[in-house]
């Protein structure tokens, strides 16, 4: 009986584990928060911009705020602010010029998506094609919690003899039901 209970718990554990694994698989393309970039990215980040920061720090900061959320299509795991790719440098310059002409960040993002699609945005808009991306991980987490709740409730309703007895420690009196088997010897249990 206890054996069957173990098997069922193992199966549910496998389910929960599978869900946990499934979640990052869905989230693989999810937007990474720009703040999470590794320290070496910060080092790279300064190189192409250091000289220009001196020219107009305010403009540079606005440009970096925008390009820091845009994906470089040449090296896809870097932002346009980070990347050394030629195209990224061109696009940074393009953003600087658009800002000088008084374009808003929204207009600049539209300029980018008109050319490269939503893929260029590290925070893609929530629409039908990106719904799974945004809601998938939360949905899987909800399923995992529901499964966990079911397991806990089922186990709470079980009689004591469905569970393995607690080991009896030296000097303690076992308070077990009479039907229960003798506690198994465990490694580490004092003889």
């Amino acid at each position, binding site marked *: 009986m206890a054996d069957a209970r173990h098997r069922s718990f193992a*199966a549910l554990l496998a389910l929960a584990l599978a869900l946990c694994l499934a979640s990052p698989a869905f989230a693989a393309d999810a937007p990474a928060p720009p703040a999470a970039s590794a320290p070496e990215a910060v080092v790279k980040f300064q190189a192409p911009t250091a000289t220009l920061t001196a020219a107009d720090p305010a403009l540079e900061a606005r440009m970096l705020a925008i390009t820091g959320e845009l994906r470089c299509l040449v090296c896809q795991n870097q932002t346009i602010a980070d990347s050394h790719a030629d195209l990224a440098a061109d696009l940074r310059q393009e953003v600087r010029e658009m800002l000088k002409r008084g374009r808003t960040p929204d207009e600049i993002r539209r300029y980018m998506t008109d050319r490269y699609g939503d893929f260029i945005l590290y925070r893609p808009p929530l629409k039908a094609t990106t719904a799974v991306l945004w809601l998938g991980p939360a949905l899987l987490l909800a399923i995992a919690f529901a499964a966990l709740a079911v397991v806990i409730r089922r186990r709470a309703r079980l009689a004591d003899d469905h569970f393995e007895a607690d080991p009896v420690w030296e000097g303690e009196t076992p308070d077990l039901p009479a039907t229960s088997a003798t506690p198994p010897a465990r490694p580490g249990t004092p003889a």
Partner: protein
Amino acid sequence: MKGALRFLIPLAIFFTLVGFLYKGLNLDPREVPSPLIDKPAPEFALTQLDAPTQTIRRADMLGKVWMLNVWASWCETCREEHPYLVEFAKTKAVPIYGLNYKDQREPAQAWLAERGNPYVASLVDSNGRVGIDFGVYAVPETFLIDKQGIIRFKQIGELTPEVLANTVMPLVRKLNG
């Protein structure tokens, strides 16, 4: 029945995961769907590689189906693609125009002299601005533009004889038809 479910549910989840991975690992992350398909080609006015005083504009190209191939003498993959284009140009199925992207005149001309010139003309995009308007990010890229100046096809990376025969040719026939 209940016993069977214990095994079938994890198994179903496993196969779902395998399905996602199978699909996901076979996708090429470089092939980003272009938002420019079925949109008007961007405006441009560029001089020709072999005729620096003559300009070609978007409006000049209206009324015919044409191919725009983005290339550069510094581009490694263009070297592999070029013979296919030279062969394809011989069929005269569609006029091929080049967009000489962020290149210099002399190496570009030498490159064509050495390898053959499949282009009716190459447009000089030395600062890459027109390339940006066409959403170019991985040279070579190729566009097929219809009589109304609408982009109907985009190939990211090199054209192969298979793509030319199976995708480009039927589309050219359809757009001309």
